[in-house]
């Protein structure tokens, strides 16, 4: 990122003097895919280093408050990996700007000129500040213990503050490319000429993108923490190590899932603002060229929810006394009724109509409020199994398309839902499907908490399959990030900056989902390989099998 900033400072000037500099042609991938690969890798590393410190500092605080050393160890181990990946973020950031300048020199110069203060001053200063605070945070860990712990936690909060501001700042140019400033009755080019840097930053999709990325980064960080735990669990030979990494995997998954619950709503907010900016973006996303990308997204999110609930199921198995845990019958009833009722309510009173909440809130709160007065209960096992059934139903609704065609233009009756059933493909049904997944997961966590308080948890004895579930969750979360990152970029259609600067190169078309999947998978694998290496180097290497004999002290000067 420092390199990025320096290049932004000097590269812009250099290219400004040579406007006709021809771009290079990347072999095999082409220019656009080359930028895609490097940018996505950079975002993955950056996403982790911004997301992980959020729960690291919370974990450190919990350890301090509960006097539980496991939280502190988790926080420190994740920070160790973060420090290594911080270097990778800087490296890929530098590579990103090199590739951008080589492939799209004129556009890169144009963008840098429009955000000169951001690229040349604000961003580098924030990055330097973040570097200093991160290293201070890491290297003062052991020194600032006991009475000084609060000071160390405050440093962690400062790190997160700088990290979040850095994210918000760099989201400015990114969101600007999707939704450049505009005003009614004035052409975008004319308005841009008079716009201040704040006008450009504070565009339609800036804040929704900030929120979406912030929550997404915590989700991603949580799942990667789960991945770290899975690797270490698989490599552990001692029971106490297995016990700790089993616990860490559970906490990582809980953070990942906890943030994941908010992610669909943040995604809707971003999509809503994009559609509000230009209504033609909506059909491009949902009914035209990118519609199958969203089908794939539905499949991925469905799998992630299935896997995270399966992890809870496996976690429950190692709790002694779990069979005693019961829940009101209203919980499974609401689970089963939710997709149907919510689809009907949202069709009649589309969000954000408050009437929809008037119907849905009492229904959602019924198990907690009315459940106390209804004596009929069911076993936790039954509730979770009904929950799984509803997760499958939710996935089915989410993945059912209006037509089995890549664009609305190719729709024929043989590939289209019957008109009476078209509601399955509309937003109320999709929203209800997403909400069903969230509701089931919340209920499962409530059951788990009851099981923990009523029974005895045996850490380290979890089914070995759970480690593959943690790995699957991290892999799928990263893959989905790659998919949705591609979607956000492709929403610019054949423009570098939407409706403002057309992309005259031959690569400005929408690629196929299959082509995109190959590259997303490749990027995920490369990222995984680097993260795996970082985990092995930082954590495995620091756990010697046996304490080495330090030998006898030798006097200075002895031969």
């Amino acid at each position, binding site marked *: 990122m420092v390199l990025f900033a320096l290049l932004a400072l000097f590269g812009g000037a250099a290219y400004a003097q040579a406007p*006709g500099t*021809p*771009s290079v042609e990347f072999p095999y991938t082409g220019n656009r895919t080359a930028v895609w690969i490097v940018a996505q890798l950079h975002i993955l590393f950056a996403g982790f280093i911004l997301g992980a410190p959020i729960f690291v500092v919370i974990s450190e605080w919990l350890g301090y408050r509960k006097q539980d050393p496991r939280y502190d160890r988790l926080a420190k181990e994740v920070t160790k990996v973060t420090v290594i990946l911080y270097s990778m973020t800087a490296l890929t950031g530098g590579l990103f700007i090199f590739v951008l300048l080589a492939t799209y020199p*004129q*556009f890169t110069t144009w963008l840098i000129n429009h955000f000169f203060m951001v690229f040349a001053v604000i961003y580098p200063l924030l990055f330097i500040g973040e570097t200093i605070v991160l290293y201070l945070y890491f290297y003062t860990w052991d020194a600032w213990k006991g009475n000084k712990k609060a000071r160390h936690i405050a440093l962690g909060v400062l790190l997160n503050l700088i990290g979040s501001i850095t994210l918000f700042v760099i989201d400015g140019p990114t969101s600007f490319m999707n939704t450049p400033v505009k005003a*009614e*009755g004035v052409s*975008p080019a004319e308005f841009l000429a008079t716009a201040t840097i704040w006008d450009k930053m504070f565009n339609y999709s800036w804040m929704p993108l900030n929120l979406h990325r912030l929550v997404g980064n915590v989700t991603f960080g949580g799942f990667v923490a789960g991945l770290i735990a899975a690797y270490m669990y*698989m*490599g552990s*030979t001692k029971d106490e190590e297995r016990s700790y990494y089993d616990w860490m995997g559970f906490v990582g998954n809980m953070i990942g899932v906890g943030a994941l619950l908010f992610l669909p709503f943040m995604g809707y907010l971003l999509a809503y603002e994009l559609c509000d900016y*230009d*209504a*033609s973006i*909506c*059909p*491009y996303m949902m*009914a*035209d*060229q990118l519609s*199958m990308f969203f*089908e794939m997204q539905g499949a991925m999110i469905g799998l992630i929810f299935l896997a995270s609930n*399966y992890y809870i199921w496996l976690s429950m*198995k190692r709790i002694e006394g779990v069979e005693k845990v019961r829940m009101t019958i209203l919980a499974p009833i609401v689970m089963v009724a939710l997709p149907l009722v919510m689809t009907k309510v949202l069709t009649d009173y589309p969000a954000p109509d408050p009437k929809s909440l008037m119907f849905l809130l009492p229904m959602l709160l019924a198990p907690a409020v009315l459940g106390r007065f209804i004596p009929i209960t069911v076993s936790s096992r039954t509730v979770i199994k009904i929950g*799984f059934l509803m*997760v*499958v139903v939710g*996935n*089915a609704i989410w993945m*059912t398309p209006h037509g*089995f*065609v*890549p664009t*609305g*233009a190719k729709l024929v009756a*043989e590939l289209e*839902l019957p008109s009476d059933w078209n509601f399955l493909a509309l937003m109320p049904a999709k929203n209800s499907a997403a909400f069903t997944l969230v509701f089931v997961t919340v209920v499962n966590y409530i059951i788990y908490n009851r099981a923990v308080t009523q029974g005895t948890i045996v850490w380290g004895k979890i089914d*070995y*399959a759970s480690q*593959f579930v943690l790995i*699957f969750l991290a*892999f*799928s979360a990263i*893959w989905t990030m790659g998919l949705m990152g591609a979607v956000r970029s492709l929403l610019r259609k*054949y423009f570098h900056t939407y*409706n403002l*600067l*057309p992309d*005259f190169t*031959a690569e400005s*078309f*929408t*690629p*196929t*989902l*299959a082509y*995109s*999947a190959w590259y*997303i998978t490749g990027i995920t*694998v490369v990222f995984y390989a680097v993260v795996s290496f970082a985990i092995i180097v930082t954590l495995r290497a620091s756990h010697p099998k046996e304490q080495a004999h330090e030998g006898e002290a030798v006097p200075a000067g002895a031969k």
Partner: protein
Amino acid sequence: MGKAIIKIIVGLVIGAGLFMGTMAFDFPPVFRWLFFGYAVLGTIVFLILDAPTMKVMSGGKALVSLLVFYAVLCTVFISGASLWPQYDPEDEKGKIVKLLKGKPNLLDPWKAEEVIARAKDLDQKAKELTERIKALGAAQAPAGQEAGGAGAPPATTGAAGGDVLKLGEEQWQLQECYNCHKLKGEGGKKRGPELDNIGTLLPQDEIARKILDPKAYKAEGFDAEYEKGKMPDKYKDLMEPKDVQALAAWLSTFKNTSVNTPKPIKMK
């Protein structure tokens, strides 16, 4: 094992029920198989839930199982994405070429890359000609300089040649107006009014004005869409005046009074 067989039988029965049910409701075959697939997914989930506990692995065995797991994940994700219907980029490439034809490149007003490429091309041709002149003698003229040779500007063809209505129809497709407006029974998702009778309700010039300034008219019954500015205010910047006029001319030919096109209300 007995439980697993029962689950498989139940899954198949549910799958068959969904298949028959969707057939009864006239779902196309692809959807019947999709619903059957959901039943299979559910069966797999319930089989996994009660699967026996996996034995602890370590060392090389754990590493190999991990690598195999990653290979399976990659294969499943790539093949899963490839199973969905794929958009053909060739459809879009032609559209983009037409949309960008004649548009100024603000980043490269001098068309530097094009000029450099042409200069190189001409340089190469000059060298070839020099060689040929040397070989054949100065009296013979090279064929490449005739009109319509490789260096000549491309001829304008197709709709841009003069057929205004054809150009208008082409603009309807290029600007993807069908995504919001229904016409001839095709397209539209109720985002915008159906336009089969627009020619009776608005003259050509006013249709053009509405395209250029969406706030100029409001369609009756589309108050919320009008207030939210659902029709993008971008065509004045993206379309050439002749393209707007052609689209308006083409739309003004639609005078199907049997279709209830909402009445346009003048706002400006």
